[in-house]
């Protein structure tokens, strides 16, 4: 028994401690969970993070604002576009510039596409965690279509770097609208298939219902946001409560479930995919003409002060705090990553359930490790 485990109170005789991770098929990255077991039952979980800590916040202190954007891609690489947007919005808020309407529309469409592809990948890996390997390929097959749209317009598939303070790197590709509509048509057919394959499945329902319950109060207290928080009935959609971009003009529903178990977190994400498609359908035909970028100075200097921007990333609330000293570099840039807060609730969620449930709960929280570690 290591010194470390002794300190954390995991050295009681009857407990059986296993390390899940850093290399493990279902930690979705390099996360280490020190799990103390009694038989199959999880007594406590202790996450150990930091295996891919890169010090992005520190790096940002030496980079100009347009340069920061490409680092935010590498936080939660599955919602890269939304992370980009968060920093851009924060800079635009500080500079008090109004971006053109066209930019807002395109950003919203791309954000929702990002959300869809992120949830698709979540669905694949959740199925994989449950042991239904086939889900993985169906999800990836449809996600590929979104990535093609990204590649055609942004140039990158996952790491898009498409936003820039003031607007976008370049205008959308002429095929963009056509391809998005094609994708929506395709995905409306395929999404019910997901339900047939996994959602309705009796094994999956038995494994997720009433498992990993977190109450609304606990969810708020632990800062569990995004689909995981909404599964507990915590209405935490930043797009609704603190709208940014075009979100105050579009009509969508924030899916809320009361139970707070793994299944409700699952359902929230499935519903969000439908809602995202609804948002895109409202916007895709009405993209106004205009510039794709506001006029910006070549060197962006933020006025002295503190700026905070919250956006709804695919996994929860992403916050960007910029403290500027009037320089072209930020004095301090803090990224409030949704996954770190979501992860902190893992012990509460998984204690008392089985190892298989721990894996399913981890899958339903859908953490992305680079976002936890930053």
């Amino acid at each position: 028994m290591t010194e470390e485990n002794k300190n954390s109170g995991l050295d009681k005789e009857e407990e059986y401690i296993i390390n899940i991770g850093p290399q493990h098929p279902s930690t979705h990255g390099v996360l280490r969970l020190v799990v103390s077991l009694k038989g199959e039952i999880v007594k406590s979980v202790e996450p150990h993070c930091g295996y891919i800590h890169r010090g992005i916040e520190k790096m940002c202190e030496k980079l100009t604002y347009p340069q920061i954007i490409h680092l935010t891609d590498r936080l939660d690489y599955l919602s890269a576009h939304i992370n980009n947007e968060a920093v851009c919005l924060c800079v635009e808020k500080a500079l008090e510039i109004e971006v053109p309407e066209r930019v807002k529309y395109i950003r919203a469409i791309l954000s929702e596409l990002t959300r869809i592809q992120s949830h698709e990948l979540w669905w694949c890996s959740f199925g994989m965690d449950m042991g239904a390997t086939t889900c993985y390929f169906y999800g990836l097959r449809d996600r590929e279509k979104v990535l093609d749209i990204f590649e055609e317009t942004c140039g990158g598939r996952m790491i898009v770097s498409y936003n820039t303070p003031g607007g976008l790197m370049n205008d959308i590709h002429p095929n963009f609208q056509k391809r998005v509509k094609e994708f929506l048509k395709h995905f409306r057919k395929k999404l019910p298939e997901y339900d047939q394959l996994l959602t309705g499945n009796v094994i999956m329902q038995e494994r997720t219902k009433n498992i990993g319950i977190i109450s609304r109060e606990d969810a708020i207290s632990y800062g569990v946001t995004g689909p995981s928080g909404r599964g507990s009935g915590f209405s935490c959609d930043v797009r609704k409560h603190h709208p940014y971009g075009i979100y105050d003009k579009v009509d969508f529903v924030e899916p809320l479930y009361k139970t707070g178990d793994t299944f409700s977190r699952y359902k929230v994400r499935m519903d969000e995919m439908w809602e995202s498609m609804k948002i895109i359908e409202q916007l895709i035909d009405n993209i106004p003409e205009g510039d794709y970028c506001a006029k910006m100075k070549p060197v962006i200097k933020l006025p002295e002060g503190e700026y905070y921007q919250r956006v709804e990333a695919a996994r929860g609330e992403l916050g960007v705090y910029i403290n500027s000293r009037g320089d072209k570099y930020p004095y301090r840039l803090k990224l409030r990553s949704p996954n770190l807060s979501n992860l902190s609730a893992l012990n509460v969620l998984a204690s008392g359930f089985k190892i298989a449930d721990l894996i399913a709960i981890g899958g339903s929280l859908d953490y992305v490790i680079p976002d936890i570690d930053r």
Partner: protein
Amino acid sequence: MPFNIYDFTSFTQWIDKSLYDSLSPLWAMIWEMTIIGVAFLLFYAVIGLFLVYAERKVCAFMQCRIGPNRVGPYGIIQTIADLFKLLMKELIPIKNADKFLFNLAPFIVIITTFLAIAAIPFAKGLHAIDFNIGIFYILAVSSMSVIGVLLAGWSSNNKYSLIGAMRSGAQIVSYELSVGLSLITIIVLAGSMQLSTIVEAQADGWFIFKGHIPAIIAFIIYLIAATAETNRGPFDLAEAESELTAGYHTEYSGIKFAFFYLAEFINMFIVASIAATVFWGGWMPFHIGGWEAFNNIMDYIPPFIWFFGKTFFIIFIIMWFKWTFPRLRIDQLLTLEWKYLLPINLFNVLLMAFIVLMGWHF
């Protein structure tokens, strides 16, 4: 009768007779055993390679993929390449492992499959041994493989392996009941445990048709329980890739891992062939009582084609299960057995006995 074209009884008896005529009984027996052993080893290699390839292709097609396609046309040599890779891999010694048991475990697993396959009739007269307690024997030896799994988990000095092995123990102890009871249902109908008799009894119709409702229920239960017995998805808790990395064989590498891997596929073949023999008539062609012309046409199709056709169809269904369903949790696994399969099964045996007594079967 065209039936005799494919009757292997005279062929096997001729080998037997010529060996005993030319050699002393002891040597004749040793030679016979060697021939059968070599034949089964060759059969293992072929069936193992084929099943691995089939599984990969089946799962690929279900997942909108192509599957192996690089080595040879349509990737048919892929599994042979994999075999050579496994043979050449280093056997990694594990620190603090119980060396003897660690090395013994894969052999126990593979030997039990060897024992079980001996009793299976591939065609008329083409079986290694024909017990009068054939089914009973198969049930007994096939459940011994759990010892190998438990030893593997215990001796690996790995916590994941131990959890996997314990799960496997609980699983096989429970599902053994269902396998046994669902086969007993058919034994009630057949009135014999000898596999050759069971097959002969299906000459005028397979038991799944003859026994109608209880036989179908027994077949479905057998299929579920057999999938669980072979530790295949959705019952692959002992391996549980996303939970326990690889379960009981986490620490094995090279040829020892290959033994576990091969044993899984051979086990699948064995359970499928038992299902084919007991429920679907084994090598017996599709006969309908009274339709002589139709039956004669069916007899021209060789019996081993019937046997392997049925077996691979059942294997396909087991693969279909694996590539569709999420894995069960350990308590769900036990609930399924003790709350659903076992009571239904017990009731089913009674129902079958009643039907046989009343003569309602065909």
